């Protein structure tokens, strides 16, 4: 894992975070009193039913939503400052590749905006294409790739500018089980190789348990954290770890947390 130099300083820290959306039907409390600390190099999953605020929290970290009250810092800065320092890459549920750009062109997009020179752009594109195992597909257009490959390309795009934090909002939600398993394995490998801090929103209990060092269980109305589980699973995780007793125990605790949140209503 990459040594960040100041491991004691949290990468993401939320204290008493509230976020209220003003909608036509009146205010909706999307996040209520959220407290969470994420350290460097952690893989944190956010799990919960729709409306629990997991995506909103991720978007708040990325400065796409503004909290109503409380404090939220990313690398000790406000999310907006962190964004300007290119602190994170964001992967959305849909790959969202531009159909008029080749795969390389899509990965080059953030690099162009951030002002990397041509040579650096080319080097980085090649490097991240290899990282997500899409070497040789750079000249293809998105429609020529499968859904899974497109999502890998979008991960490459988020990795291209070397952000320390990778935020993924249900990146594999639209893919089938088999492709999903493969990509989960690859994300773990990627994480081990790059040592990035990853925030990962998911609906799937097995996915959350398989990937994470920390699982944040959330519940809706108002969106809040009901349980934070530090995973005892080892760093190296083959797919069949999902049949182990430890894995099943954590999955059980996550399920209990989800159910408890539901009873509160």
């Amino acid at each position, binding site marked *: 894992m990459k040594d960040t130099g100041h491991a004691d300083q949290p990468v993401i820290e939320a204290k008493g975070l509230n976020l209220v959306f003003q909608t036509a039907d009146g205010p909706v409390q999307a996040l209520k009193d959220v407290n969470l600390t994420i350290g460097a190099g952690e893989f944190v999953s956010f799990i919960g039913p729709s409306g629990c605020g997991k995506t909103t929290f991720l978007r708040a970290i990325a*400065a796409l939503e503004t909290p109503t009250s409380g404090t939220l810092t990313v690398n000790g800065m406000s999310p907006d400052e962190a*964004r300007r320092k290119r602190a994170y890459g*964001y992967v*959305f549920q849909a790959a*969202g590749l531009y159909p008029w750009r080749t795969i390389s062109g899509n990965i080059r997009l*953030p690099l*162009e*905006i951030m002002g990397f020179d041509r040579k650096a752009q080319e080097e980085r594109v090649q490097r991240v294409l290899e990282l997500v195992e899409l070497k040789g597909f750079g000249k293809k*257009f998105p429609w020529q790739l499968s859904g899974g490959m497109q999502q890998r390309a979008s991960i490459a795009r988020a990795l291209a*500018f070397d952000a320390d934090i990778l935020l993924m909002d249900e990146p594999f939600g639209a893919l089938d089980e088999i492709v999903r398993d493969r990509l989960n394995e690859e994300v773990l490998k990627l994480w081990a190789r790059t040592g990035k801090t990853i925030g990962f929103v998911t609906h799937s209990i097995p996915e959350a348990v398989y990937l994470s060092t920390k699982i944040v269980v959330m519940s809706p109305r108002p969106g809040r954290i009901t349980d934070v589980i530090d995973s005892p699973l080892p760093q190296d995780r083959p797919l069949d770890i999902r049949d182990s007793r430890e894995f099943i125990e954590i999955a059980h605790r996550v399920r209990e947390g989800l159910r408890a949140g539901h009873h509160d209503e």
Partner: protein
Amino acid sequence: MKRALPVLTVLIGIVVIWYAAAVWMNSTWVYDQAERAGTTVSFAEMVPQTMDQDRPLLPPPHQVGAELWKGLFGQAVTSKRSLVYHGFVTFKGTMMGFGLGIVTGVLLAMAIVRFRVMDMSVMPWAIISQTVPIVALAPMILVVSNQLGIEGREVPKAIIAAYLSFFPVLVSMVKGLRAPDQMQLDLLKTYGAGEGETFLKLRLPASMPYFFASLKVAVAAALVGTIVGELPTGAVEGLGARMLLGSQYGEPLITWAALFASAILAGMLILVVGLTERMIAQKMGVRT
């Protein structure tokens, strides 16, 4: 061949109906002549006489074809009787109006997408502008531009053509520039992209399919606008002037030949726009 067959079938159908209509409409003249001469004509005698009248009510296809051929190839292309010459005058006007229409349409669309106040203030007027009949407006534009000391008809013609062609471009571009969804906009936001970059890298390329769809309508509208601009009295050049000349002097063949010349011009313009679209689409990776 598979695509040509339906087109040819329709074409043959049109020609047949056209001949039938020509016989029917031109027969009146034949019967009148016979009555005045105190003779009678049978149907078989009448039909050939409807085919080569000097001033037919409805000239049959071969007469129009012959006149069109004469107009296109019967003399030097610089002659005032050449349809190539008049066609080129109309083409030039169309291109100026088309260009002006595209620029106006795109700039207005950009402003409308960017500024809400423009959306609310300009868009209704753009729609109202298209409800005013252009034939009523064209003479006014000519008079005003003359008052302003603008020589010749090129500028007012271009303005009339642009008046018609900016609208489809405007409507399509407003839709096209708004085509990117929230996720794509959020993505650029996470890169810290400014408005200019969002426009150049996302909105503009995303609007291209809408843009080209509108160009086909706009180029045809520009041609119509140009011809309307050539109609008011005083014009001596252009296909519109030829059409008017034909109807004023009771020479329907001239009108019909000019009509077909403008149809050919329209076809060529749309073809060029279509080919350009295909070229750009290929570059932009559209699935073929």
